[in-house]
């Protein structure tokens, strides 16, 4: 099937092929006669062996051999010599089949089956494997079989590690050997086997080892993939609390945010509390996180992971603080302290515990009486035109809330680890630069960009402040720019990374962030905070830095190249979102919005919904296709036949309470679809530019 040249066969060749085919057919027919009559004579076995030699992929042939072996072993009882002779014959048949096709699954499995009987020499197997490795060092069947045999022989991981070292020295381009090395090494590190501790020492040695490969043949990918794994091991330390809303050290007026609570009775004393971690964690609850307030506050908190999947792990966690309804001094600010001290219960999705206590605090200003929040009778339509936004009247209270930069407090021992690992990365950066000075290597440049980002993450964490090095970002952006030109097929990959780093740069500090903050014209449609983060027209293809954006209530991402809004679900305060003129290809891409319960205004006009027959997010959102149990089957079925076409729109919008929605400019947004939307969203006041009812 593979690698045969395209040539019209001559008449002679055709004839010969038919003759050969007839011969194979005849052997097959004979074989089936024996198989279906359970005949295991010497003659029968020979026919079978001939068949497997001609066609090692003939699965039923291998099944038959196992039946024959079982039959003959029963006859042999415990006569060790007979047993050995029977099984040796099997190994010969396998070897002969492998000579025809050394990638035959059936042949390799039969060999394993024989070995598992425990009567065959494992040393001989290792010898055979060496032979196969010489023929093809990338044969994954042989590598799998090797792992099987070494497990049978209880060969220690250190010895096998040495084998990978030998194979790599023979040929640096042996991805299979590098892969095996990574498996063995992670086991040795995890079990803290003697000689493989501390981790930093091992990583330093491995970096040196892989450097040989990279400098010898920088265009071969194998070493670089291994290098990426080492980098990952060096950077991935414990998960940390990276930001929150309200931010550490801020002061919040509770009545400004009560509209955001899910409670229908609009208690004016409820405040969302959002915690954002460096990676997805589980186990956030009232026993692992303590929230204490001077004033009366219900301390029995329910924490929800903000995630589109049902794994129970999320980067962002949400709870609601409810303050007692007793009259309080309106002029006093009450302190709320949040502590993550008992962090053994908090685990990352990889299973690691956090040993890093975090503390933060903010103050709240409570209303003097139980004022009911009233949305007001005449809420205006939000108009996203540029003239409605101004940047010169930002209220000072607003600025305090933009500052979501937390000071990470890392205790002594861990701080040393960050510093040590940052030093390892700094050395790798130097070596990488050296290599790149000699040649233009695509994957070397990519690695340098990743190293610089990693160094930035490690060094700022260890210093305890978000002290971003702006020069570093500039260099990283230049590298991605170069890569877009050097490696055009992967242009979009580099563009996505570029967008992320660009955002990091622009949101790095308060000064830079303020450039993008605008005031929406004063209106009754929003609470006091009509502050908008305006990231329109920046050629962004991806969103990131969500930990810096937890405070955002109004967000303009229009006129970019955004395809995916992964991460946006963390912006739990979001009320108004503009995604017009982007590259959203389906409603399923809007899945994160389902978790934004405060969302009232959404503009997805002028995207590509309905233009693509292939939905790339079909399995990344809840639907009958992904057999997620919370798919509202009953509602869906009852609502009518158009549901089959609009199932994803149904899924996204039915849980939201939108007041204003724009869908025009998407191929799917015809009259029929708009009628469907009106039916689905009875509380909606504006659809496109039309006022409803």
């Amino acid at each position: 099937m593979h690698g045969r040249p395209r040539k019209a066969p001559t008449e002679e060749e055709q004839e010969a092929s038919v003759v050969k085919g007839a011969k194979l057919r005849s052997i097959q027919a004979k074989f089936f006669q024996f198989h279906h009559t359970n005949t295991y004579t010497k003659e029968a076995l020979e026919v079978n062996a001939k068949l497997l030699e001609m066609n090692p992929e003939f699965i039923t042939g291998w099944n038959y051999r196992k039946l024959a072996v079982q039959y003959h072993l029963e006859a042999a009882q415990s006569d060790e010599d007979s047993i050995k002779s029977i099984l040796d014959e099997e190994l010969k048949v396998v070897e002969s089949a492998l000579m025809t096709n050394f990638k035959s699954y059936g042949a390799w499995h039969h060999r394993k089956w024989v070995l598992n009987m425990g009567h065959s020499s494992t040393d001989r197997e290792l010898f055979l494997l060496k032979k196969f490795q010489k023929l093809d060092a990338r044969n994954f069947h042989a590598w799998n079989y090797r792992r099987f045999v070494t497990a049978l022989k209880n060969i220690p991981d250190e010895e096998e590690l040495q084998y990978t070292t030998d194979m790599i020295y023979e040929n640096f381009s042996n991805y299979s050997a590098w892969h095996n090395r990574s498996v063995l090494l992670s086991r040795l590190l995890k079990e803290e086997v003697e000689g493989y501790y501390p981790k930093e020492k091992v990583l330093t040695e491995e970096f040196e080892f892989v450097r040989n490969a990279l400098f010898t043949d920088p265009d071969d990918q194998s070493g670089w993939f291994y290098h990426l794994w080492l980098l990952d091991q060096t950077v991935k330390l414990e998960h940390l609390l990276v930001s929150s809303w309200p931010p550490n050290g801020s002061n919040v007026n509770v009545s400004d945010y009560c509209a955001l609570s899910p409670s229908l009775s609009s208690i004016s004393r409820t405040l969302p509390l959002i915690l954002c971690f460096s990676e997805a964690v589980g186990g956030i609850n009232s026993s692992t996180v303590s929230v204490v307030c001077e004033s009366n506050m219900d301390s029995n908190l329910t924490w929800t992971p903000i995630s589109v999947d049902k794994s129970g792990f999320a980067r962002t966690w949400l709870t609601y603080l409810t303050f007692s309804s007793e009259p309080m001094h309106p002029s006093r600010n009450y302190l709320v302290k949040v502590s993550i001290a008992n962090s053994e219960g908090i685990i990352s999705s990889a299973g690691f515990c956090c040993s890093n206590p975090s503390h933060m605090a903010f103050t709240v200003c409570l209303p003097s009486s139980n004022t009911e929040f009233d949305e007001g009778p005449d809420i205006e339509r939000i108009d996203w035109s540029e003239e409605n936004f101004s940047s010169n009247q930002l209220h000072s209270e607003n600025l305090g809330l933009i500052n979501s930069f937390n000071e990470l407090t890392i205790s002594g021992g861990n701080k040393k680890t960050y510093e040590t690992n940052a030093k390892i990365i700094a050395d790798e950066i130097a070596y990488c630069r050296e290599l790149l000075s000699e040649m233009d290597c695509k994957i070397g440049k990519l690695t340098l960009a990743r190293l610089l980002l990693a160094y930035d993450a490690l060094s700022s964490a260890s210093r305890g402040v978000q002290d971003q090095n702006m020069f570093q970002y500039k260099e990283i952006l230049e590298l991605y720019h170069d890569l877009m030109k050097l490696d055009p097929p992967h242009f979009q990959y580099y563009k996505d990374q570029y967008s992320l780093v660009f955002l990091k740069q622009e949101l790095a500090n308060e000064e830079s962030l303020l450039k993008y903050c605008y005031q929406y014209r004063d209106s009754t449609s929003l609470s006091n905070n009509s502050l908008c983060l305006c990231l329109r027209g920046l050629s962004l293809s991806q969103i990131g830095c969500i930990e810096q954006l937890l405070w955002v209530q109004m967000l303009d991402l229009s006129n970019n190249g955004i395809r995916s809004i992964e991460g946006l679900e963390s912006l739990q305060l979001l009320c108004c979102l503009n995604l017009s003129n982007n590259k959203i290809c389906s409603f399923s891409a809007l899945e994160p919005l389902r978790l934004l319960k405060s969302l009232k205004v959404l503009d997805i006009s002028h995207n590509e919904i309905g233009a693509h027959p292939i939905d790339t997010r079909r399995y990344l959102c809840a639907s009958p296709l992904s057999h997620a149990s919370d798919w509202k089957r009953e509602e869906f079925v009852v609502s009518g036949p158009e549901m089959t076409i609009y199932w994803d729109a149904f899924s996204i919008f039915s849980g939201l309470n939108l007041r204003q929605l724009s869908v025009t400019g998407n191929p799917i947004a015809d009259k029929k679809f708009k009628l469907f939307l009106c039916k689905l969203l009875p509380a909606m006041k504006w659809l496109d530019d039309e006022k409803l009812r």
Partner: protein
Amino acid sequence: MGELAVEKHVKFILTIEKEKDSFESVVMEHIRLNGAYWALTTLDILGKLNTVDQDEVISWMMQCQHESGGFGGNIGHDPHLLYTLSAIQVLALFDKIDALDIDKVSNYIAGLQNNDGSFSGDMWGEIDTRFSCVAILSLALLKRLDKINVEKAVNYIVSCKNLDGGFGCTPGAESHAGQIFCCVAALAVTGSLHHVDKDLLGWWLCERQVKSGGLNGRPEKLPDVCYSWWVLSSLIMIDRVHWIDKEKLIKFILDCQDKENGGISDRPEDAVDVFHTYFGVAGLSLLEYPGLKAIDPAYALPVDVVNRIFFGR
């Protein structure tokens, strides 16, 4: 850019159905049921499923079923999960899944799950994540996923996840595009894609695109049209397909056509076969090549067939 020679490929497929006596054909007799699935799905994508005799196909196929409930690759061959899935897929194409004794087939499949959640291909115990995929897709199409321990099945697949983000056939085995497709499809269908590091795997997968525009199956290997399916569908399921150059890949697939005699080969100028014809056409469908029916990246069946099963008529 060249064009897809639809009529030639249809003719090629209908011809090989008849030409069964060459050595190349006889040596594939044991996987004929897979061959039927590749041929018929290709025809459906090209809008020509009606050119075959549905009853003839189904009647032959049902004869491949073993008394255990599983299907063999051809009449008289031993049953195996691989052919059982193909049988179910072919019946799905014809909207005739009810021709099966669904409980019998699903019991056969469920009976092959092991204690650690893995699946054996048949009673002889070969374990491979390919079989996890096949079992899960089969039971999902039959709406009998509850017959297996889905959580354990998912955990086993996750245990085969490698440090480069990819998946192998067993724990510790090297990442390979075919295995990756199998694991990602199984995780997709069980709503478990959160176990996949989409950025890490997405990058590993997009690096399969080589200079010629074709895709290989693992680093430093040659490109092959069948990887246009395994790699491409995986990228689509994790929404990272924009990280490859789609136009270049389309051109590579079209260059692998035999425009005179029909059929698609693994590489330009190589011999064609139904396997690569299917993967080439399916790949083009995923790339939204005009005039082709959309194919579902997990079930590898046309989207309208999948929607018919899960969303009703």
